[in-house]
């Protein structure tokens, strides 16, 4: 049976000791609805060759527009461009993204991201984000216990306070009994690969195509056209680590920072039963032992990684003169260590902006693991150069253009 809900432990002051969604905690959370707060402790504030390169490595993206200063100088931007995934470092990797959202001890499951991009972020820019809780609605969870769908609106600004992007991030906060969580994945075994299978995946990596400097003209795009797929994995802990190297981690802290954090948010740490040492429950993302403690066959990815890989699929296809303007993806089921993910895209619609006449292309995105589960369905929209607009002008407001 396909899993519908994301069973990830992540975010917030959540931990393995279960908290409850009591009326006071819920009221406290809801009191924040509509209030915009600055994110003050992001992983990335400055966009430069180092942070751009770290973000590109974080998603395994070797696109020269982000990595090669000589190449980028020849582009229309005249300098390195930040991959859209870099913006996760301004909010998701921040140390204070989740602060103040309460319901301590209640799991948070990152369920979807809807990104809208208005203009590129370039070498030399600075970025800062704000967060606004827009809803905390009760819902029927898949498992026993109450759940809250927590919706947040993140806005990303550059140093001129221009809005460069927006992300609507949803998370499911749910109480659940351990017994239910242990049942669902108990039969899944960690994937194994022969050298031939690894070689086959390597060939898929090599087959990746970066459109690059060869413009993809809107007129030339055909409906139902397939995008060159992206393969990820088999997922390993080092790959998890490159993600947080580039984007930051909410809960991985060391020394004085870790002590301070545990005192401020006690539920972020759980003592390891073997050593007594308090460790961040975030380690379900790299530590099989901790994952097993919550009934998972292996450690598993962060939802945000999947969203970032989806941007990679799209930027590969859009080319240097195109621009990803919208990405709406849902994180379903688990992506365990050892799993392989293939992200595919198909052109579903071509249309012209009502206000600007810009040529847009809509795509459906499907992320499928090697067991055949669709773990990331979604959509994306790309603005492409066309006869009417040989060179896209920014900012682009795709929502206004949809009419």
């Amino acid at each position, binding site marked *: 049976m396909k899993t519908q809900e994301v069973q990830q432990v992540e975010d917030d002051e959540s931990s393995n000791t279960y908290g409850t969604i009591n009326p006071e905690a819920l009221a406290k959370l809801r009191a924040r609805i509509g209030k915009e707060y600055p994110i003050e402790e992001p*992983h*990335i504030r*400055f966009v*430069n*060759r*180092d*942070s751009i390169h*770290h973000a590109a*490595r*974080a*998603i*395994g*993206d*070797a696109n020269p527009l982000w990595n090669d200063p000589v190449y980028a100088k020849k582009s229309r931007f005249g300098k390195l461009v930040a991959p859209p995934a870099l913006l996760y470092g301004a909010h998701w990797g921040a140390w204070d993204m989740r602060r103040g959202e309460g319901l301590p001890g209640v799991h948070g499951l990152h369920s979807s991201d809807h990104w809208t991009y208005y203009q590129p972020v370039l070498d030399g820019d600075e970025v800062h984000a704000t967060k606004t809780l827009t809803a905390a609605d009760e819902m029927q969870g898949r498992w026993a216990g109450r759940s809250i769908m927590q919706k947040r609106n993140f806005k990303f600004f550059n140093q001129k306070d221009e809005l460069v992007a927006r992300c609507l991030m949803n998370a499911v906060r749910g109480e659940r009994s351990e017994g239910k969580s242990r049942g669902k994945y108990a039969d899944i075994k*960690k*994937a*194994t*690969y*022969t*050298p031939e*299978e*690894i070689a086959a995946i*390597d060939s898929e*990596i090599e087959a*990746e195509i970066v459109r690059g400097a060869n413009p993809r003209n809107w007129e030339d795009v055909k409906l139902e056209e397939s995008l060159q797929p992206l393969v*990820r994995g*088999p997922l*390993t*802990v*080092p*790959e998890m*680590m*490159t*993600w*947080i*190297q580039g984007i*930051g*981690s909410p809960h*991985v*802290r*060391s*020394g*004085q*920072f*870790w*002590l*301070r954090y545990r005192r401020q948010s006690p539920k972020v740490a759980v003592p*390891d039963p*073997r*050593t*007594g*040492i*308090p*460790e*961040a429950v975030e*380690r379900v993302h*790299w*530590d*099989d032992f901790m994952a097993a403690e919550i009934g998972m066959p292996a450690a598993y990815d962060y939802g945000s990684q999947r969203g970032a890989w989806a941007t990679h699929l799209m930027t590969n296809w859009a080319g240097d003169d195109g621009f990803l303007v919208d990405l709406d993806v849902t994180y379903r089921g688990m992506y365990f260590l*050892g799993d392989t993910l293939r992200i595919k895209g198909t052109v579903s619609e071509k249309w012209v902006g009502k206000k600007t006449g810009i040529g847009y292309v809509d795509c459906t995105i499907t992320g499928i693991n090697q067991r055949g589960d669709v773990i990331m369905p979604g959509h994306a929209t790309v603005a492409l150069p066309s006869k009417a607009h040989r060179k896209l002008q920014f900012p682009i407001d795709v929502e206004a253009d949809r009419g």
Partner: protein
Amino acid sequence: MTSEATVANPRYGKITDEEVAKLRGRMFKERVIAVPYNRVATLDGINHYMRGIGDTNPLYLDDAYAQGTRWGGVIAPPCFLYSVHWGSWDLRRGWGLPGVHGLHNQDRWQFFRPIKAGAPVHATRELVGLDEKQGRLAGRAFIETVRVKFRDEAGQMLAMVHMSSYRAERDAAKKANKYGDVKLGHYTAADLAKIEADYDAEVIRGAETRYWEDVNEGEVLQPVVKGPFTSADMIAWVMGVGSPHIRFGRYFLDYRRRTPAVVVLNPETGVPEPVERVHWDNFMAGELGMPAAYDYGSHRGALSSHLMTNWVGDDGWLALHDVQYRGMVFLGDTVWFRGTVTRKFEQGPNSFVEVEIQGVNQRSEVPLRGRAIAALASRARGPVVMPVEEVQ
């Protein structure tokens, strides 16, 4: 001795005369480190490094604070430079003796000029030492030393490090067996409370100038405790300084193709992974005969420098930091870094203090030994004069 995947395969190759001669032929050729983790000491890069070693010193984190110091703004802490060379992807090229295990056993740092936030750093590497040692067990062994120079945009020397590795042909399992009986860290709530009290007792000298005249030989520095170490600490470290072998997607594919020896197949899954995972993965460490995952030598070096930067204060300057890495620091260990002043001296316009350093773990073993020399402001002679000259 710490294992750090210098030529990352735990297979034991032979050290032949041909390979040694080949390597000697490469000595004293200075090469650019072209793929550093950090090219610039950005405020973010410094922030990540500080988080990586758990250091909250505002001199390196808070520009508003640092503007009130003699440096005029945030400067990079001394061992930030590990993020330039150690975390690079090309430091270890040309280290030769393929298939022969390398254990990072020493760093001898010298610091000459401050690195202001936003300043680019250019690094070069050069093989400068290949000394044959009598191995403890049969088989050839060498201490291989690489000198890294860090220069600013104008070509002026910012700092230098001599990084040494123990290259030995002996079977790793034989060495590792001596750790079979190690009692890994286990802590009660009371144990943890004691360690937390030591964290709380840490002192950052900060704005209160430490004058050379006020320092006495035999004086004991306020210790700095680190740990109990978990995989998160290792992850925080590579977040701060980069990682030589952790790569993803296309980057990893290219690396595996060029340097097959850097990966081992995970025996559970058949998936190729960098052997560097011995540093956070107990299972993989077990495959090498270790009781648990263990730290990086460079990590130990950086942590020990925190002892000194705390002590010298905003007006002092760490000029020399020379530390040896002995034995293992396993996940679960706690290490206290301690220092004692052993001498005071004047050289050129500056007044210096030498400190003997030790890192002691909860088993009372000493996984780090070394010495540091710091320039301090003098009541008689004035503030530290930059650049600080070389001291021995």
